[in-house]
């Protein structure tokens, strides 16, 4: 009997593991247990950067005012820049939602919580998609949902006044470079087709120098490098990222070299950010399933190794 069971298991062990993994994911979906999650340094870095946008804008205004009183060079240019900065005293967040449905389960919670954080603090948001046309509509629904559902010290957010969704344009390297010079050259209109100069919010935003933080939520390899090259190296603007867990190991060195202010690793990063903001959401909900699945996988790895040693001893 035992031999028959073992033979059946030998043929069907893959399916048994699938069923166990599905159970580990399905059962927690019915539970309402909240795990205690402590934000890691990388997550806290991005949270602090978003939290600090209004202070960064005040500091930028003060610095520019001091520069204007001391210098007579480029007076018109500096005055125009100062006027733009003063139009958004809470600062401006540029968020790029570079993912498609295949990585949306991991990255949607990240994008939502960053947007909610900005909206709760009254920070105007410019949202773009630079790398995939397939993600354009998905990104719009995320931005609109976050704006609609966020209740903070400020009113419900309105498109064009409190946030702008510019949608997708092809050729991301040139697009990001153009945004450094003039956003309206990269995006003549928003996603709905309204010219940028007709949008009240965009009167105070010309290029990346008018942006206090760039947050990139991406599921593509290669896209983060371009953002680092242009936003950090060329224009020296603060840059934070959220990405799929698969890619995190590749981009952690940029956190260490301070080229990134923060880095959210997959759904775990979203859960940590939600905890930091004290606003549990989709990320926190998914963590119980993660815990159960990881315990199962650790047990399976240990069992597999134990079986391997037992079989080797029996053979010898």
């Amino acid at each position, binding site marked *: 009997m035992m031999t028959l069971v073992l033979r059946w298991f030998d043929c069907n062990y893959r*399916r048994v593991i*699938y069923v166990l*993994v*599905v159970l580990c*994911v*399905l059962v927690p*979906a*019915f539970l309402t247990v909240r795990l205690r999650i402590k934000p890691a340094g990388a997550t806290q870095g991005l949270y602090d950067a978003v939290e600090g946008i209004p202070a960064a804008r005040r500091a930028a205004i003060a610095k520019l005012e001091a520069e204007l009183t001391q210098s007579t060079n480029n007076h018109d240019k500096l005055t125009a820049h100062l006027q733009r900065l003063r139009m958004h005293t809470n600062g401006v967040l540029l968020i790029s939602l570079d993912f*498609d449905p295949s*990585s*949306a*389960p*991991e990255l949607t919670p990240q994008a939502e919580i960053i947007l909610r954080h900005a909206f709760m603090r009254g920070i105007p948001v410019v949202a773009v998609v630079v790398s*995939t*046309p*397939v993600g*354009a509509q998905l990104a719009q629904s995320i931005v609109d949902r976050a704006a609609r559902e966020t209740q903070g010290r400020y009113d419900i957010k309105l498109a064009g006044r409190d946030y702008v969704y510019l*949608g*997708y*344009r*092809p*050729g991301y*390297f040139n697009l990001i*470079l153009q945004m450094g010079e003039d956003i309206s050259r990269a995006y*003549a*209109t928003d996603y709905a087709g309204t010219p940028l100069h007709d949008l009240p919010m965009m009167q105070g935003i010309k290029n990346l120098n008018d942006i206090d933080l760039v947050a990139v939520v991406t599921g593509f390899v290669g896209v983060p*490098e371009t953002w*680092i*090259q*242009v936003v*950090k*190296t*060329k224009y020296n603007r603060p840059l934070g990222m959220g990405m*799929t*867990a*698969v890619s*995190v*190991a*590749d981009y952690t*060195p940029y956190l*260490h*070299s*301070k*080229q990134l202010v923060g880095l959210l*690793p*997959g*759904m*775990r990063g979203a859960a940590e950010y939600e905890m930091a903001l004290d606003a549990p959401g*989709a990320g926190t*909900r*998914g963590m119980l*399933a*993660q815990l159960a*699945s*990881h315990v199962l*996988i650790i047990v399976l790895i240990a069992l597999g190794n134990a079986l391997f040693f037992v079989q080797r001893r029996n053979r010898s």
Partner: protein
Amino acid sequence: MMPESFMDLAGVWIAALLSLCVFSFLFKDNILFKITEAIFVGVSVGYGIVLSWNAGLHPKVVVPFMEFIRNYHDKSRADFFWAAYMVVSLGIGVLYLSRFSPRQAWLSRFPMAYLMGIGIGIGMPLTIQSFIFEQMRATLIPIVVKTNGALDWAASLGNIALLAGVFSVLYYFFFSVKKSDPVSQTVSRVGIAYLMLGFGASFALTVMARISLLSARVQFLKDEWVEGTLRYFNLL
């Protein structure tokens, strides 16, 4: 979450049934999985083409050109230069299509060379600055870290481990010298250990990513498909 209309409900049902068709591959390869795969590829490509046209070619080329042609008698010399530049650019772009003809495929090298030239010209200084100089700068760190005059053991050990990792991995990939002496072999083994730690971290993160995808899909099936349908028909 309850679907707001019957069309929403139909959309949820289509998404749920397609998800189940994909999961059926776990049992064994079957026709339902293949149909779903084909639908996914077809929809993605079709959607991508339409959006690329709407977001790229139409607003950036077609609309300005039509406007230029309609009002060409009012245009300045600079506008004519712009039009000529656009025509040349479009012509170079069209050469890409020559790849469909085996005899004329060589023409596609011109747009490729054009793009590679631009890419290297713009990208090389930024790449060297971002990925070589900045990373080297991040490696120039003190071995002994002092905080408020006292030795910070944790930070010091962290920095030593980082430096040891960088040098041992670089040495492992240094194939020009035969590593036969014990010192070289030990350094290479340390490099291999660092690489293994890196691969282990990547594997664990990959597991986390895949579980996240499964978890979100299961959550969708539970919340939007089963509970959403029951709520829509007032059964829950």
